[in-house]
């Protein structure tokens, strides 16, 4: 047993962070909320060039042939920088579905080449049982991907309706004309769901990690009553609780990232469900506490903290919120109890 990133993964983490720091400066992220998708498009191009978009696509189909852990390393870093790109939606959830649930091979290669694909969900952002109505983390012109009634991933041209971006302008939803789907019952479909949960948990962990770093920086600098606010025990304890949330969300997420590829399906699901159900609320707590530490500035549009919190909410809701993974965990426990 070894629970640690490999040297290659640490390198991947560092280079992704360098790229992200360049692409997603705080001010760039703030303007991305209203730039009509310009940063999103530029950044996606760059991430495609770096082979990060095709991380889960096999090398012989034009991808990087990486592991889910590799993809989670990237997703976490992107979360830290509140990156307005559909990495979880496209590079993790959709790529897995196309690859593991027998989707068209040319779409997979196309995805690795930077073409926009969005996973199709129901109105509660859960994985649909019979009908999808939302393209999640939608990009203009994106194809939609969902499991068909035959249990195979199918690609759909989308008849688009309203854009819903008032919760998280960095990750728009698009209503689409209903697409009939199959339920995620096969082992392949269940593994895809587990991978989507895990990738989302990684992004949520990164969002939280960024909030923690920012809070600690700010608390070390901002002075009130003649001393840095970070020297007050009340602020210290807020930050410590954030740290516990971040590190423990990270632990379960990376554990799940290994399990979804290597463990039997029941164990894979148990860990992925735990990661999703834990990282969502943990990330919300951390982003909220981060705003509390920042004080007034944190609730304005002059700071990106609200965008971070918005992204945390959207991703907490995605792929069945906490309800779906918690129900899975509870039912498994009851079966084995």
């Amino acid at each position, binding site marked *: *047993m*070894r*629970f*640690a*990133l*490999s040297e290659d993964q640490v390198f991947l983490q560092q280079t992704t962070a360098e790229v992200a720091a360049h692409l997603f400066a705080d001010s760039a992220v703030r303007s991305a909320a209203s730039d009509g998708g310009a940063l999103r498009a530029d950044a996606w191009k760059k991430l495609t060039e770096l082979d990060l978009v095709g991380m889960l696509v096999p090398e012989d189909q034009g991808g990087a042939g990486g592991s889910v*852990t590799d993809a989670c390393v990237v997703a976490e870093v992107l979360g830290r920088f509140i990156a307005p790109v559909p990495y979880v939606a496209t590079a993790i959830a959709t790529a897995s579905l196309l690859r593991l649930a027998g989707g068209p091979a040319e779409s997979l290669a196309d995805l690795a080449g930077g073409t926009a694909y969005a996973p199709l969900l129901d109105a509660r952002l859960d994985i649909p049982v019979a009908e999808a109505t939302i393209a999640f983390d939608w990009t203009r012109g994106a194809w939609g991907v969902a499991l068909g009634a035959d249990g195979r991933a199918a690609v759909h041209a989308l008849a688009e309706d309203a854009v819903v971006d008032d919760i998280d302008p960095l990750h728009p939803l698009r209503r689409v004309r209903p697409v009939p789907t199959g339920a995620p019952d096969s082992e392949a479909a269940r593994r895809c769901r587990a991978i989507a949960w895990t990738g989302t948990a990684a992004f949520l962990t990164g969002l939280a990690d960024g909030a923690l770093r920012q809070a*600690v920086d700010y*608390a*070390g600098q901002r002075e009130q009553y003649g*001393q*840095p606010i*970070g*020297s*007050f*025990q009340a*602020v*210290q*304890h807020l*930050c*410590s*609780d954030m*740290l*516990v949330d971040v*590190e*423990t*969300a990270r*632990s*379960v997420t*990376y*554990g*799940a*990232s*290994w*399990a979804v590829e*290597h*463990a039997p399906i029941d164990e894979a699901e*148990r*860990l992925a*469900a*735990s*990661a999703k*159900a*834990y990282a969502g609320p943990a990330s919300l707590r951390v982003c909220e506490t981060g705003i509390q530490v920042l004080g007034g500035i944190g609730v304005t549009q002059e700071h990106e903290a609200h965008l971070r919190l918005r992204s945390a909410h959207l991703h907490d809701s995605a792929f069945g919120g*906490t*309800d779906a*993974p*918690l*129900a*899975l*965990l*509870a*039912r*498994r*426990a*009851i*079966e*084995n*109890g």
Partner: protein
Amino acid sequence: MDLRDSPDEARFRGRLRSWLADNLPSEPEPATLSERWPYMLAFQRKMYRGGWIALSYPEEVGGQGLGLMEEAILGEELGRANAPTMIPLGHLGRPLLSHGTAEQRRRYLPPLLASEEIWCQGFSEPQAGSDLAALRTRAVLDGDEWVLSGQKVWTSYGAFADYCLLLARTDPKAVRHRGISAFVVPLRTAGITVRPIVLANGDEEFAEIHLDDVRIPAENLLGKPTDGWRIAMDVVSYERGAVDVGYLAKFDRYLTELAGLVRASGREPDRSTLQTLGEAAAGLEVLRMHCLRSLSERVEGGSPGAESSIDKLLMTRVEQTLMSAGLELLDDVTTPDRSEWFDRYLYGRAGSIYGGSAQIQRNILAQRVLALPRGPRA
């Protein structure tokens, strides 16, 4: 990342699993500590004879020369097999190993690891809880004997122990933690009184130790004088890792039991029930993964640092979530199951207090991991 056993680990697990299948006691664990103690002790000695205790200690002191990884596998398998509660002794052998003389290691470690001599930890005092460095128990060298006077509290299994690893102040002029030394104190020495502390749930796991001019040989000093603080911090950080203390296995057992009671109720679980039970289950997976990660970091990087406060706070959080889930789901308050669960819940309240309160753990994280500025107190 590779959460699978290596071939060696898999072999170890296989052997252990089949040993446990053959050797687990057939009688259930008694409810009261006075009956449970001999039961636990008998099984622990049997395990030692089987070669399953002190796995990561060197063979020359009675260990198995294996690693932390095997210790973790042991914890998992004990939980899986619903084995009796282990008496946590391993962390008390560590300072003997690292600071003991050859003679001390030879004399004390083998019987400690064999559970032939039971050890306890004499750190906390009535006026030195969170603020351990404020301890007042004094040790004065008088010829070739140390004379100890003072009082210790919160000593786990103190009423059953033969030896105490005890901290006392040897240099009253040195500031706080600099004047402290560690001693090996035989509890049968004249001047020692041990009094059990009854916990809210009726458990008598803890004790007070009163020392009244207790004379022990000069060679019972562990390490150099004033090494005490470093020794204590070492023990405390080992204690904070959840894997060592076998909590994970216990929590797993509780969750299985709770889920079984929900099933046995025959009621179709509603959404609120699924959420509550699911959160408890997720908490355990988080704890398990975090423990694996900490373990892996320790295997690669040596002894655990200030980050172990994360493990401690997580363990408390997971325990308290699990206990609340039990109280909520077992809503027929007149059943014995509910009553037992309530006792566990009460015991769980201590989780955020002993071994450094939740407030102290947060101080440690803020100052030593996050490097936030110290307050005016510093």
